[in-house]
C-alpha cells in the first residue's frame, strides 16, 4: 500500500458541501496558543489563506505546513495572512510549530471538535479530522477560492499564489 492508500483507508472520503467562491467565510474564534485566541474577523482588510489539514506530525519532506512556512514571505508580500487549522489541541500545535519552526498561527478546532471545519464543509464525519482543504478569503471576508486535496496529498501552493495574485489585481483595478 502506498501512502495515499494508507491515508484513504484511515480517512475515507465523507460527504462534503465545501464553501466556494462568493460564500461568506464564517467567523470563528479559536485558540492559537494555550492562552491566546484568534478570530477570522481580526484579519478583515487583508486576504487570509486558511489551510485546513488533518493532523500535526505528518512526514517531514512532503509536509504541507513546512512548505507554507517556507513561502511565508511571498504570502506576506501579497498582503495575505496565513493560518493553519486542525483538530489538534493547542499544546500539540505548540510542540509541532516549535519542532518545524513554523512562523504562522496554527488554530485548534478542538472544542467543540471540528466545528469550524463543519462550517466550511470540510469535516470528515466519523474520521474525526478535517479534509486537507484550502480557502483564500478576500479582505471583505468572502471566499475567493477553495480547493480540497486528496487527503494524503500535499496540494502545494500554486493555487493559493494564483488566487492571491488575482485578488491583488482586482484591488489595483
Amino acid at each position, binding site marked *: 500500500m502506498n501512502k495515499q492508500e494508507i491515508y484513504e483507508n484511515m480517512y475515507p472520503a465523507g460527504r462534503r458541501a465545501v464553501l466556494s467562491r462568493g460564500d461568506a467565510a464564517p467567523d470563528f474564534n479559536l485558540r492559537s496558543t494555550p492562552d491566546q485566541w484568534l478570530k477570522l474577523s481580526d484579519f478583515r482588510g487583508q486576504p487570509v489563506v486558511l489551510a485546513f489539514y488533518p493532523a500535526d506530525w505528518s512526514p517531514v519532506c*512532503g509536509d*504541507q505546513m513546512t512548505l507554507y512556512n*517556507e513561502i511565508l514571505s511571498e504570502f506576506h508580500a501579497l498582503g495575505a495572512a496565513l493560518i493553519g487549522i486542525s483538530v489538534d489541541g493547542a499544546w500539540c500545535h505548540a510542540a509541532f510549530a516549535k519542532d518545524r519552526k513554523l512562523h504562522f498561527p496554527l488554530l485548534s478546532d478542538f472544542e467543540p471538535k471540528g466545528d469550524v471545519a463543519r462550517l466550511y464543509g470540510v469535516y470528515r464525519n466519523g474520521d474525526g479530522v478535517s479534509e486537507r482543504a484550502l480557502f483564500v478569503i478576500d479582505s471583505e471576508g468572502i471566499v475567493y477560492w477553495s480547493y480540497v486535496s*486528496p487527503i*494524503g*496529498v500535499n496540494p*502545494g*501552493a500554486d493555487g493559493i499564489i494564483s488566487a492571491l495574485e488575482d485578488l491583488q489585481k482586482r484591488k489595483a483595478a
Partner: protein
Amino acid sequence: MIRPLGAENRRAILTFPIAGRDHIQGSTDAPIKLLEYGDFECPYCGRAYPVVKAIQRELGDNLCFGFRHFPITTVHDHAEHAAEAAEAAGAQGKFWEMHALLFENQDALEDEDLARYAEILGLNVRQFMAEILSGAHYERIREDFMAGVRAGVNGTPTFFINGERYEGVLDPQSLLAVLTRAAA
C-alpha cells in the same frame, strides 16, 4: 518509501521551461528534458541522485538534465548553505562537480565540509566561502524555489519530463520507461 506526488485532479505543468539560466547537463536541443527540483539535504533527493546518474548513462545525448534548488530550510539546517555552495562553485565553473560531492556526502554539510569540497575541486576557497556566508546567490536560489512553487512543487525531489510532472516511482526502470515514451 516514496512520498505521493501531486494531486490527481490537477495536472502539474512546468511554468518556466529549462532555459539558459538553468544548470544543465546535455544540450537543450536533446529530445528528452528532465528537470529536478531538489534539496541537497533531503534524503529522498539523495536516493534519487544515483537514479538520475544511471538514467544519464543510459540515455546519453538524448537527455538534457537540469537541476533547480528547492531547499526546505526550516527543517534542513544545511540546505541553504549547500545550495549556496553549489551556486558559488558554479560561479567558478564547477556547479556539477559540487552537486555530486554534496549528494554523495549528505551527512557532512557543515560549512567546514563545504570548504573542504571547494578545496578538493581546486576552487578559490576564500571567495567560495565569502559568497556562501553572505548569501550571494540567495536571489537565484529563491527564484528557483518560487518557480517550483508556481509549478505545484510540494516537496522534494520533484521531477518534470518535457514540462510534465513525473508522478511515478523513483527507480531507473520506471523513470526510464516514461522518459523513453517522452522521446517517441
